């Protein structure tokens, strides 16, 4: 399949992801349905199993979750594909973020900027709780919920190194207890 990818298809991948980048408010995962439509549907460079395994692999690996985009590109067209999707998804949003951050920082004493930060603060925290909730709710069963709650309390109340918690989760999971 990989050999069948032409450079015109690489450009198409790059172009699609450039556009998706600016739509990805709330993270790249929010445009995953569109990626599915493009990669599995229109272009036919991935099948369904490859698509969902891309997200799973990136979740399991260390680093930002957005790397699932690189995994999709890689499964579709090797290293060149990974570069095309990854640079596509990153370039517009990074440029915009940098410009916006500078604009806001230069005007940080403005009342509108202070109001923005104050108003958004509780909403951002709510979104973190929501992410955690959605991740927990999508897995059937209840034992993993105990693990999630225990991890949350330990992070909140102690200074235990986060890797110990992840490691403990891996061990508990490998033993088949969750």
């Amino acid at each position, binding site marked *: 399949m990989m050999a069948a990818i032409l450079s015109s298809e690489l450009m198409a991948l790059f172009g699609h992801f450039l556009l998706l980048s600016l*739509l990805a*408010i*709330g993270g*790249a995962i929010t445009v995953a349905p569109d990626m599915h439509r493009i990669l599995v549907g229109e272009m036919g460079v991935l099948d369904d199993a490859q698509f969902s395994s*891309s997200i799973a*692999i*990136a*979740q*399991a*690996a*260390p*680093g*930002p*979750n957005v*790397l699932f985009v*690189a995994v999709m590109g*890689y499964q579709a067209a090797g290293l060149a594909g*990974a570069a095309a999707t990854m640079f596509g998804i*990153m370039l*517009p949003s*990074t440029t915009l*973020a940098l410009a*916006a*951050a500078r604009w806001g920082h230069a005007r940080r004493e403005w009342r509108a900027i202070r109001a*923005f*930060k*104050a*108003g*958004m*603060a*509780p*909403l*951002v*925290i709510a*979104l*973190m*709780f*929501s*992410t*955690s*909730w959605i991740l*927990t709710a999508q897995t059937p069963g209840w034992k*993993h*919920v105990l*693990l*999630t709650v225990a*991890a*949350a*309390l330990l*992070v909140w109340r102690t200074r235990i190194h986060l890797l110990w*918690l*992840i490691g403990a*989760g891996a*061990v*508990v*999971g*490998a033993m*088949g*207890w*969750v």
Partner: protein
Amino acid sequence: MPDPSLSQPASKTDLFWTFTVLALQGFGGVLAVAQRVLCEQKRWLTREQFLEILAVGQVLPGPNICNIALMIGDRFFGWRGAFAALAGMMAIPAVIVLVLTATYAEFAAVPAVAGALKGMGAVSAGLISGTALKLLGALRNNPMGVAVCGVLLAAMFACVALLRWPLVWMLLVAGLGACTYAWFRLAAERRDPA
């Protein structure tokens, strides 16, 4: 913002490696580790500043955590710093994830591996809400007041997590409402400094 309790990255190399080490500890998301490392270990940011940067990262398109790396790098060392921080966050993790992808097929069928991934996923969900619990303290100084913050937080959670309303619209509607209210509160504060 001269805050005596805060420190600074020594160089762009320091930024690169700090973000590399930080990213390598982040399984299933980097946010929890970022808060731990940047606010508590390195002390480059206060909890309030972290939350502010997160707010900006949240309303802009693109991965929050990458936007955070960019903004922090830029604040200390300009665009080169931004690039160093972002490259630190992405470069080595990208290599690891691609190697994993290339070998994934061999491991995917092993039940212990699938179980371990499930356990790690459960823990990383917990890390995110644990970090959110920590950031709650930053709302104490919010000009909207603790009660209003609590109501906004609960309403946003209900709409996004329970009702699954689209994030973009919620950010627009709730965000506009909250920011407008904060704008008036800040004006009142200035007239009547309590």
